[in-house]
């Protein structure tokens, strides 16, 4: 953790700011939400990493998708993700967003989350323990350092493809497209 190296703060305060204050939107997706309250209370403290849950998606820049994603939940996830302020990072918890997990042949859950919203990192497990969550946060710091955590840029660049995937799943979507052309909002 290089939070106390003043030279890095002076060289690039923006990157250090994004690393050490990750506000997570408190969206309870699936069965993995049972692992979030232990990791933000007193035993495994997440606030010392700068991670704190906030009440709305406008104030957040970290989105944890914890567990299986059914078709109804995916609509809410897409709307929440599009409301967050950039730069934003997504982390998929558990094995269900990776490839379907335990519900690999279910008629109502999606199998690969990466086709619908961009994901920066995955955490394996069913459910991961709080120590795994903290390891993931430190990996996310490394990615932010090397500018490889660019999920939001990919969403902006390939928005046509993401939107067409979402429309293949649902038919007509109730909300208008987020970006008109590439980049312009």
């Amino acid at each position, binding site marked *: 953790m290089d*939070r*106390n190296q003043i030279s890095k703060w002076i060289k690039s*305060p*923006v990157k*250090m*700011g*994004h690393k*050490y*204050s990750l*506000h997570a939107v408190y969206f309870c997706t699936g069965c993995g939400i049972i692992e979030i309250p232990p990791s933000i*209370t*007193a*035993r495994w*403290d997440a*606030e*010392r990493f*700068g991670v*704190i849950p*906030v*009440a*709305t998606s*406008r*104030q957040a*820049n970290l989105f944890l998708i914890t567990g299986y994603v059914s078709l109804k939940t995916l609509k809410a996830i897409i709307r929440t993700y599009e409301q*967050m*302020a*950039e*730069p934003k990072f997504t982390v998929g918890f558990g094995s269900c967003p990776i490839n379907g997990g335990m519900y690999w042949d279910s008629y109502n859950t999606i199998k690969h989350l990466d086709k619908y919203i961009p994901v920066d990192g995955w955490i394996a497990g069913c459910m991961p323990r709080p120590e795994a969550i903290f390891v993931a946060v430190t990996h996310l710091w490394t990615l932010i350092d090397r500018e490889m955590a660019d999920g939001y840029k990919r969403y902006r660049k390939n928005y046509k493809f993401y939107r067409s995937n979402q429309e293949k799943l649902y038919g007509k979507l109730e909300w208008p497209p987020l970006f008109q052309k590439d980049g312009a909002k």
Partner: protein
Amino acid sequence: MALKLLLTLIIALVTGLFFLGLSRKMIARIQWRYGPPLIQPLIDIIKLLSQKSMTHGGLFNFGLVLSLAGSVILLLFIPLGEWCIMNKSGGLLVIIYLMLLAPFGTALSSGAAANPNASIGISRKLLMALAYEVPLLLILLTLMTYYNTISISGIIVKQQNAGWSLTILPLLLSGIAYILILPAVLGIRPFAIVKAPQEIASGPSVEYSGKFLAFAEIQHAFQTYITIALFVNLFLGGASNPGYFFLKMLVVFVAGILIHTVFPRFRIEQAIKYLWRWPALLALAGLAVVVILDKI
């Protein structure tokens, strides 16, 4: 003069942010965990200023700037040690007027964001301002009557001769009333009704993102500083040495945080009933005592 102005602003901002960070660290330590570092609010503000924020129109931007301007203007009337920028103009009367500018600005900007949570939050904020204004006005009237002046620097000078206001017997009732309403003015539990993240999705700041949230945090830091500095100047002597001044502010703030960690939150009607009952009666009794003593 310009240097004094700039220095006052910077000192107030740094002290306010330090108090916010200290509160998070202290709450964490009381709950048997480590907490974020002391400069965490500064890290949050740096991150928030570099985010791409979403605006809801002209009134949204204007209201937030108005509330920040209200806090900064209020700052100029409160002495810091021996400096007071607007020394000769108005004093306590202007503070009574300008205290409502900050909630009003937040109400304007949150009203422009068409979110029902924001509307509930602003109604709570203005109700709280109404609730703690009643005892606060009575206390300020008592002080103005006893010391026969409206300038805060004058009150500080008189306290340096006669001792702290809290130890002067006719002003004791007003002092106790001010201590009872101090959590409400600061916005800490049990009166943390405005920003209720679990109930109304953080009230007025529900639609703030990026730089708007940064301004809201800065305004919160200024507001904390102003409230504690006013109490220290009026009742605890206010010092001529800035170090001693900050020490007194620190003691008051730590006492407030110790109350904040153990209490849950009131409902808004419970808060108004409390604030208009005992603190208001004590302040009224204090005013009556001072006026009667003055006539004798």
